């Protein structure tokens, strides 16, 4: 990189060059190819997960669903015969006596989020 810099001073509502501070100075600006020298953020890539075949912990790590909700969702999902739609799990939650009114609002929302998540598959 070649760098030049002027000192500007105010004059008649604008500025004028007072003196040149640096002229055509060569500045080395090498690119460091070592990835460990860079801050690349703390977020790790999301893994693809299966609702039926992966642990609730693994799914929780890779989604934004509370682990507790996933445990409930998985337990309902595993009781559904021929599971091939998320709506079957929602129906299972709504028809279950194991959940209170708040959970019956909350769990279908979590199921909907799982359905929309690109990295989550049913089986």
């Amino acid at each position, binding site marked *: 990189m070649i760098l030049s810099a002027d000192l500007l001073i105010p004059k008649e509502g604008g500025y004028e060059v007072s003196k040149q501070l640096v002229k055509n100075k060569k500045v080395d600006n090498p690119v460091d190819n070592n990835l460990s020298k860079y801050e690349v953020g703390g977020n790790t890539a999301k893994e693809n997960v299966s609702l039926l075949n992966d642990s609730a912990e693994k799914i929780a790590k890779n989604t934004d669903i*509370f682990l507790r909700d996933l445990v409930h969702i998985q337990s309902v999902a595993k009781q559904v015969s021929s599971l091939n739609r998320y709506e079957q799990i929602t129906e299972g939650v709504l028809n279950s006596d194991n959940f209170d009114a708040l959970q019956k609002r909350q769990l279908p929302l979590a199921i909907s989020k799982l359905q929309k998540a690109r990295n989550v598959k049913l089986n």
Partner: protein
Amino acid sequence: MDRSIIDKTISLLTLDLYDREDENILELNTYNSLPIMDTPINLNYWNRIQDISLVALYKATANGFVIEWEAKQITATGKLNFLPIEQIVQNWKDRLYFERDMEYNDLIAHYHPIDMPSETISCGMLITPNFVSESIYLHHAPEPETFDLDLDLEGYVHMAKEACIFSNWQMVLLNITNLQHPITKQFRETIPTLFPDFNWDAFVEKYESLKLSNQ
């Protein structure tokens, strides 16, 4: 195990915000981690804080979580950012406060933020080797003061829900009788446009009913 009132209140807050998202009023995002499953921090701190309701919440739900929204038609945001327990108990000197602040307010050395909705505003507890405050305190960086909100954690979460976590709602509590304060004014004018069920008088009444000094 029965869910705590704090846990249920946060769920209700989230569901209310999802309803607003469904109505295309705002965009909602949530983030959370795994719950606390074992002793995650040094025992010294753990022994002091393991009985507080926050730890029960983190064991039941997640070790820190974020709920944030942004209005679609107007400029307005809201955020709840409960930090992971390891961050809460870390030393915040030279991060949130500095040596000179301790000369002005020695309590700040024991201040540990729990909810950090912005870079300048946080709310947390005072934790010393022998004491964990019942009340939640507000810190507005870079000011050295810690303001007592006169709410315990359960009351804080209730008020967060009442305020729909609208930005600076905690500052509104501190200025609840000063209707001309810019933050109170903006809150009162804006929040009903996004949340039509919001009622200022009910909000004030709720705060009064939850104040520790009124128990």
